[in-house]
């Protein structure tokens, strides 16, 4: 074998080795991406959607009888108790990466928290502005997040950051009929229903998940949702 031939063979061998290495790297990357649903989700996420039917009549908290009052209390707004929260019981790996934390608002308007229910991710800060002419005093003794914002007047706002997942029951220390819920999740796969009870959880990586609906402290049974690649999974709930 002459020298040019040996050189050519060696070049072929090096080229083959490089190609093999590149193929190996790409294969590894492909396998790795298959093992990480969140990475796949960015490319081919699906949606879980459906409806939550409330088969019980939730009634707003009434005022306590104002026996010590001189007159009829002013009319107040009633909270919207028809909103439910639907969420994945167990989220895909990678969904728990720390989020930057956004802002949400729960207003105090006409002796009512508006909205009555908010669902947020951990790290989110909730603003509690007072839109009434009189004082409110937002507080919670929930284990998930204990706080007391004190009394503040119209046009002022106080904020609370929620860093632990769980359900936080919010009250007003002055108006005992005022209450609300903050549902804090460690993943982004949740949705609050609309006025008709419809919900939609987007960007769900393909896979099978347990899904739960919640309304006013009552949970539905866990249902399984199989989310196809880039497709929809329909899932309806009934809460009794």
């Amino acid at each position, binding site marked *: 074998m002459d020298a040019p031939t040996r050189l050519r063979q060696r070049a072929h061998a090096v080229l083959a080795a490089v190609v093999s290495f590149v193929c190996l790297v790409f294969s590894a990357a492909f396998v790795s991406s298959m093992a990480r649903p969140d990475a796949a989700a960015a490319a081919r996420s699906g949606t879980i959607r459906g409806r939550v039917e409330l088969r019980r009549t939730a009634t707003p908290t009434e005022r306590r009888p104002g026996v010590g009052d001189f007159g009829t209390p002013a009319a107040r707004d009633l909270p919207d108790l028809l909103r439910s929260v639907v969420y994945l019981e167990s989220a895909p790996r990678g969904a728990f990466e720390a989020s930057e934390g956004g802002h949400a608002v729960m207003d105090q308007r006409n002796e009512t928290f508006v909205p009555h229910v908010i669902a947020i991710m951990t790290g989110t800060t909730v603003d509690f502005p007072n839109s009434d002419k009189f004082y409110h005093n937002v507080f919670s003794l929930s*284990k998930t997040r204990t706080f007391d914002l004190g009394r503040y007047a119209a046009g002022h706002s106080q904020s609370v950051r929620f860093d632990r997942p769980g359900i936080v029951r919010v009250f007003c220390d002055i108006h005992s009929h005022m209450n609300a819920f903050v549902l804090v999740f460690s993943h982004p796969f949740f949705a609050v229903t609309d006025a008709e009870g419809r919900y939609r959880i987007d960007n769900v990586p393909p896979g099978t998940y347990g899904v739960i609906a919640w309304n006013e402290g009552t949970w539905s049974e866990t249902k399984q949702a199989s989310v196809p690649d880039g497709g929809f999974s329909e899932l309806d709930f009934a809460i009794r």
Partner: protein
Amino acid sequence: MSAGSTAARVAWLLVVCAGAARAQTLPSEPIALADGRVTVSGDVAASFGSKDPGFFDYTDYEHSALRLMRIDVSAAVKAGPHFTVLAEVRTENFGRLEPYALFLRVRPWTARDFDIQVGRVPPTFGAFARHTYANDNPLIGYPLAYQYLTTVRPDALPASADELLRKRGLGWLVRYSIGNPVAAPGVPLVSAFRWDTGVQAHAGLGMASMTASVTTGTISNPLVTDDNDGRQVAGRLELRPVAGLVLGTSAARGPFVAQSAVRAVDDMQPGNSFTQTAWGADAEYSRGYYLLRFETIVSAWTLPVAPTPPQQLPITSPLSVVSLSVEGRYKLRPGLYAAARYDRLTFSDVTGAVAGTLPWDAPVARVEVGGGYAIQRNLLLKVSVQRNSRDGGPLERSATLGAAQLVFWF
């Protein structure tokens, strides 16, 4: 109850409370029936406190406010947009069930802040009387003006200044020579334990609100049925210039002495009226984590002048008393607060032949310091210590009393 058993009860209370979860597991919403037209709520306050041999904390029901099990059930029945019937029944130490309030509230024009209440109505006078519910009182004791029993009685009268001065500091159980011969408690300046019966009108206009009432009793002696054919007229003006600030002033005047006692004196001359006249001013300011309350009341009782026994001096009416109360509360952290109150009663002077010139009842002062811890939103544990002092009278002149109270409401 001995000090040991008091301590044991308090310890039991603390253990029970410590065992309760912080999460909201107790129902806190009023019971609503008939689509919310009927609502029922309740307040339970169990207080365990020191013995009170000086009778500093006794109320007009002969119970100590520091050793009281009080259960209130309130209800409102709405009959359309114009009419609401409100009622409250109360029992203390599992005794008789008393109707504390029962009245019809009428709102003639739904768009106007104007109401008329008829029946056993909330007190028009003062600020504290409508805030006696345990969850609205940051401490366990009451302001002296609303609880401390003076030596004045509506149905029994001293024959002279000397007899009145001999009773100084004995308001928890006092007996006089004229009128009802049975020993009974005197009255506080304003009763927080009974509501009066009559008609009350209330109007709100912007930051101001006005309330006026005509009732059968007086602020110190509210009644269901009249005992002297007289009517008390009371009024209150309240201003809320900014959020968190409430300024109030009240006045009341009504015949106080029962007919039976007047007849016993035989002082039925035309123009004589044996009244209680009172004026009060109060202020409340709150912001952030603190709440401050101030209230002062000036009250004067005009009593019939009886034929004075030999070598004694007649009573120089009216018998006046001035109360002052300052109260503060500060939230230390969610569910935990500290509170303090200072109040005192000072009485006008009366001159007796033997005792000389003295306040007609022994001046009394109280400092109470305590706090509360919300085990749950509607389950509150309070503890307090109060130092009472009285300048005169045969009973203990000072006492340091401690108490714990568990409050539950829904």
